[in-house]
């Protein structure tokens, strides 16, 4: 560790007389720009060509449904919070409100769970079910704290990034919309992002290396992806 002195006359020589007369400094610059003239295009022709967001991309939220890839302690959480055991296709949300507690702007969420209206001898008597889950995404920072807090990996970030609406009402998503977004996302890219227990696996890639549009932005010379660590496959 040291100190490196920089400055005119120290590591940069001032212009010599020949350079001044023959405009050699401009020639040098022009050589660089002309070299670039013969290179391939590096810009992406949006919206006809799209870069696929990375698997970890934090886009619009979604609420995952039960699809057999829950974490091992999912049933324990359901029991603990006295939620009606969800069947296949029903939401994973157990209305624990951890997402709201972790959120820097808790006003985003409106979460409600109501008791089921069933007779006393019914097996679901006294159990609750999540009835309202509204998210006002116009207030959201997309920081990802809610997804880290979720014990059942229900609330997730998807790769959808165009959240435009004509009114503020359009930025408020309810539980049906959120479920649909998540189902769509998991069907498209779930295999890239999650393992069979819905966790982020160590083979989750930094991005899809077959993406041609992204390769363009990398000067048509994209990196070859390999393992990070010595013991990784």
């Amino acid at each position, binding site marked *: *560790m040291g100190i490196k002195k920089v400055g005119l006359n120290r*590591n940069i020589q001032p212009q010599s007389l020949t350079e001044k007369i023959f405009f050699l400094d401009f020639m040098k610059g022009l050589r660089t720009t002309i070299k670039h003239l013969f290179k391939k295009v590096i810009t992406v022709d949006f919206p006809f060509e799209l870069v696929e967001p990375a698997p970890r991309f934090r886009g619009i939220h979604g609420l995952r449904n039960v699809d057999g890839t829950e974490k091992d302690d999912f049933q324990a959480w359901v029991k603990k919070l006295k939620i009606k055991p969800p069947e296949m296709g029903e939401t994973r949300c157990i209305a624990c409100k951890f997402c709201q507690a*972790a959120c820097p702007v808790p006003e985003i969420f409106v979460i409600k769970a109501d008791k089921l209206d069933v007779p006393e001898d019914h097996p679901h008597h006294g159990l609750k079910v999540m009835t309202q889950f509204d998210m006002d995404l116009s207030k959201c920072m997309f920081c990802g704290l809610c997804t*880290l807090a979720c014990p059942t990996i229900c609330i997730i970030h998807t790769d959808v990034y165009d959240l435009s609406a004509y009114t503020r009402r359009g930025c408020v998503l309810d539980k049906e919309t959120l479920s649909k977004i998540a189902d769509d996302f998991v069907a498209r890219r779930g295999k890239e992002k999650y393992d069979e227990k819905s966790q982020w696996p160590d083979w989750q*890639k*930094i991005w899809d290396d077959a993406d041609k549009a992204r390769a363009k932005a990398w000067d048509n010379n994209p990196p070859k*992806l390999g393992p990070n*660590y010595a013991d990784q496959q």
Partner: protein
Amino acid sequence: MSWITLDKINELKEKFEFIQINENEKGFHSVELPKENLKQFLRFLKDDPDYSFKMFIDWTIIDHGAKAEPRFQGVLILFSPEYKERIIIKTWATDETLPTLTDIWPGAKWAEREAWDMFGIKFDGHKNLVRMFLWETYPYHPLRKDFPLKGHQEVELPSLNEKERMDQLEGLQNYSRMHTALPTLEDLEITQKKRMPNKKSQVVLNWGPLHPGTHGTIWFLFDMESEYVQDCDIIIGQLHRGVEKIAENLNVQQILPYTDRMDYIASMNENHSVCVAAEKLLGIHEKIPPKAKYIRTMLAELSRINSHLLWLGTYALDLGALTMFLYTFREREKIMDIFEGITGARFTINYFRVGGVYADLPYGALDAIEHFIKDFPTRLSDYENLLTRNRIWLKRNVDVGVITEQDVYDYGLTGAVARAAGVPYDLRIIDKYDAYSEVEFDVPVGEKGDSYDRYLVRIEEMKQSSRIVQQCIDKLRKMSKNDPFFFEPEDKKMKITIDGRGTKLFKGEVYAGADNPRGELGVYIYMPKDGIKPYRFRLRSGAFYNLQIFPKLMIGRPIADAITILSTIDPVVGETDR
């Protein structure tokens, strides 16, 4: 740790009977003294060769609540460039006044104006004590503890409700018609007149707040005689969001996304500052897993390259070299791609956590970074071919905006601006936080302190950063995929979570920070007792103090130099305004 030792403080105590020592087991001790003796004591500290606390770092206020008597306490942080140590001096602001320090350090000018704006503390002897961020007619002082978080909502703004176009939202998600006070055009006129009370010539040129050359919303006033600037002042605060006030109502992991939005070009580094400070307060900074340390160091340096590339592109663009802007943005795109893949966001990243990082690197991350770093030096030499010895570039930069070593100490300049003036002030070397003690790099230092030196220093910093990144990659390659990336506390009293719920801070105070592309972002946290929310969360912004020297550099210069000087100081308004 670069703090004054207890022995040296005890020697001070022998000389000055009125000082009181607050010992602290976390490694640094503060000195408390009555405000009547403050200036005499500070002059001694500044001039005495055994101490020589020449460099001004920060000067702020703690509000101890409406019931406390006395209520406000001034906190001054100084740095001694010779002994590489800091000191914290505290004094009580009885009757809500304090003596001004502007005659000892001119850099205290804006700090005192900020303290007046935010806390309503008057400074005796300050030449023009006007508000810093808010407009002159604003009646409140928002950082006082009795000011509500949502402000006093007293202006009706029905347009926000969109009543005609939408059905009314219900419950919490509805918008209130009432809004906190907003400045009118009259208010702004009063503000402008108060900022520059004595006009010297006929024309006052307004530059900004919305001008592409100001790189944000800064409003400059130039008092001009022909094309030479006689007097200059800056009105900032158009982007003031009260990050410090918000932070005092959140837990420490929740503060991180807000710091993303301060210096939005280098948000990784902003997160880094807060993480380092909170970890030092908890006493766990040395115990962070090595994997997290190397990942953080590597990404912080990549973020520095990213930020300097944006600076280089826009700076050259401002001086007329459009091609540079396109070239640097091509390289930035690659870094943003890497950030997107690792963290999930391209710009407002929020990847670092107090205690490590929130996830391990994804498959292929190190390869992508290595690919970029291998390619980067040839790109950098392209940039240098275009600019470094170009005659127009030399004419517009050499000997423009010369900052001397004395200016650095007086104004508390940090980052590349200080280093170009010949002061090797770099927190990476002084504090050696994270993995910086284990990697090799040089600190580039300029000679003259003009704009050209600042350009050369930043170019050299990019080269050094890529050196650091390469070393971090080599270290990370040897680690295992099962190594932890987040700190697990053994102490049962301590609770740290990745999502922030229940993360507690301990009683005490800390000043720490990281060396950001725009200077030192110091974080001062004061906790009177254990708790979740920080009681006082002060962000010492490097860009804020660096911008302060701009009027001094502009006086006597032609107006065209404003672009060059502002670009090489390189403020980001999100960070100056907070």
